[in-house]
């Protein structure tokens, strides 16, 4: 990796340079209406092809991914994405398909979507699935629309309140706001689980749904979930499960079995589709029968041996996405589920939980676990799910901040864990199932070295990162006075 500062394309610009030679025009010249023309310089950079390739190659070398090194970014499930997924998505019959082709020409693709529906319904323990939403948050929004449609159809349009715990992902209240519902926050108990009394106090005939993440964002499975479901159902509302943490429960329990009525999946977390992926992802939703009439059209169905797209669903909320969702992402999710099989999926979650507990056990004497076992007790006393939270108060008390720890990890080749979410001054660590014991041990050793370093000298923490293309960035200035455009004379 080179650490020389990479110039911007604007700074690399050489007047007259071109990346491609256009052929001579073989059509007559036409005059443009001058009123439609801009006669000032465009200011676009002019660059040769090789220089352009080098620029982006340099930038790509600075990218950090799971394929580089350990990426324990809590809540994000940065598991390794098996390359067989890419093989499947690149198959001619999938990659070169046009969404407007007639159903008769696309039976293979429709069959894949249909079987993925069945897979996801089975994993959820629910009845129906829509593959259309193109992100987890889009799934939340679509599901809330489905719930609103249900209540309008059942003469209860006044149900406009959604309850969510204070540890919820930020997308939950955001989806509610986008959907025109009011969010009311439910308190968590000191052990990180939902306060049932506070939930009870907020339930009413105006509540449409309660959004719950289980295991929750502090990495604990809420064993009261079935009691919560009863409370919610008695109040006539739906239990929405945020599927962000499905990686902890695959094949072990199913949301439908513990009382959830509707949920979304994050395929990039649970089913190894690309994070980001340079475009939309997929956030399928699963639901009980009574909500199914409202899900988006079209729905892939099977009649005899033939697959087709069903638009005849009069109560549907309509389309939420052009064509059939993010098809090539769904192919990868299908490939992953098919490759794992039922036993393999359970193994994924069991191993993810084992890895998290192993790592927590190795570092918890130096990195306190506010939601873990009492001091000196093993993780088995109060195990975490697939991720855990530490508030390393002893280290913080020496004047080292969470951000100092994160930056020091970057210097040691690791992507830092999630910081300051869901509580202040925490690191949220999620190793995932795809890391070996050797990698977990290497990371644990590094964390313990940092804890030990904090006892001797905190100055190196303040200097970090030192081995990167950029040093410590001024995040306060960037947030308060962002500079969003480059103008000549600016420094890169």
């Amino acid at each position: 990796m080179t650490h020389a500062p990479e110039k911007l394309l604007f700074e690399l610009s050489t007047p007259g340079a071109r990346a491609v030679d256009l052929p001579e025009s073989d059509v007559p010249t036409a005059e443009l209406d001058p009123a439609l023309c801009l006669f000032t310089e465009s200011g676009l950079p002019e660059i040769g092809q090789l220089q352009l390739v080098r620029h982006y190659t340099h930038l790509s070398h600075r990218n950090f991914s799971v394929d580089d090194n350990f990426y324990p970014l809590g809540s994000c499930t940065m598991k390794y994405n098996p390359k067989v997924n890419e093989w499947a998505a690149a198959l001619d019959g999938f990659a070169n398909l046009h969404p407007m082709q007639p159903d008769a020409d696309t039976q293979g693709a429709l069959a894949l979507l249909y079987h993925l529906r069945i897979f996801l319904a089975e994993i959820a323990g629910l009845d129906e699935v829509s593959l259309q939403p193109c992100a987890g948050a889009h799934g939340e929004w679509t599901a809330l629309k489905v719930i609103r449609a249900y209540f309008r159809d059942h003469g209860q349009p006044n149900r406009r309140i959604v309850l969510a715990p204070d540890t919820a992902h930020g997308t939950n209240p955001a989806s509610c706001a986008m959907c025109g519902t009011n969010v009311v926050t439910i308190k968590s108990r000191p052990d990180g689980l939902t306060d049932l009394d506070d939930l009870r106090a907020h339930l009413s005939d105006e509540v449409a749904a309660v959004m719950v993440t289980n295991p929750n964002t502090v990495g604990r499975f809420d064993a009261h979930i079935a009691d919560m479901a009863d409370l919610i159902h008695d109040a006539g509302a739906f239990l929405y499960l945020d599927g962000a943490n499905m990686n902890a429960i695959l094949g072990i329990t199913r949301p439908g079995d513990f009382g959830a009525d509707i949920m979304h999946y994050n395929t990039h977390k649970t089913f190894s589709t690309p994070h980001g992926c340079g475009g939309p992802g997929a956030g399928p939703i699963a639901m009980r029968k009574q909500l199914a009439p409202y899900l988006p059209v079209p729905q892939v169905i099977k009649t005899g041996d033939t697959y087709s797209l069903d638009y005849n669903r009069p109560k549907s909320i309509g389309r939420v996405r052009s064509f059939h969702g993010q098809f090539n992402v769904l192919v990868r999710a299908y490939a992953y589920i098919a490759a794992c099989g039922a036993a393999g999926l359970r193994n994924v979650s069991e191993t993810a939980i084992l890895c998290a507990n192993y790592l927590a056990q190795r570092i918890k004497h130096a990195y306190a676990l506010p939601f873990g076992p009492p001091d000196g007790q093993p993780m088995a006393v109060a195990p975490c799910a697939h991720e855990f939270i530490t508030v390393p108060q002893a280290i913080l008390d020496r004047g080292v901040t969470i951000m100092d720890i994160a930056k020091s990890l970057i210097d040691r080749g690791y992507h830092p864990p999630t910081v300051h979410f869901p509580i202040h001054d925490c690191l949220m660590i999620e190793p995932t199932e795809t890391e070996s014991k050797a990698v977990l041990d290497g990371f644990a050793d590094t964390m313990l070295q940092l804890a030990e370093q904090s006892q001797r000298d905190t100055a190196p923490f303040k200097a970090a990162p030192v081995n990167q293309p950029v040093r410590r960035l001024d995040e306060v200035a960037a947030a308060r006075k962002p500079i969003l455009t480059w103008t000549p004379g600016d420094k890169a």
Partner: protein
Amino acid sequence: MSAPTDRRYLQTHEWHKLQGDIVTIGITQFAADELTDITFIDLPKVGAKIQANQRFGEIESVKATSDLYSGVSGTVTQVNDALQNEPGLINRDPYESGWMIKIQITNPAELNNLLSVEDYLKKVGH
């Protein structure tokens, strides 16, 4: 740690200072220190109606985004516009120049439901 004795507090760290029928609201030094550098604040407009124990705005730091709550009901009469350009005032001087909004209150008795300075400091563990 200490906090001014001439005002009352919410457990969510907002202070309330009564002068006549106007209550000024801001957040405590403890809250500002916990948030670290504040980068953005979203406040209501003059004339907005505020309900006791409802959120009236949002505060964002490099660490976290938090809701702001009022312990009293009333109408916003003044907003501290200086905070838009200089949110760091809340970190430096949370009890004076870092104030957020002034509310003309409708029910002075609501103030009795708020915490005294001693009870507030006890709640935050000091």
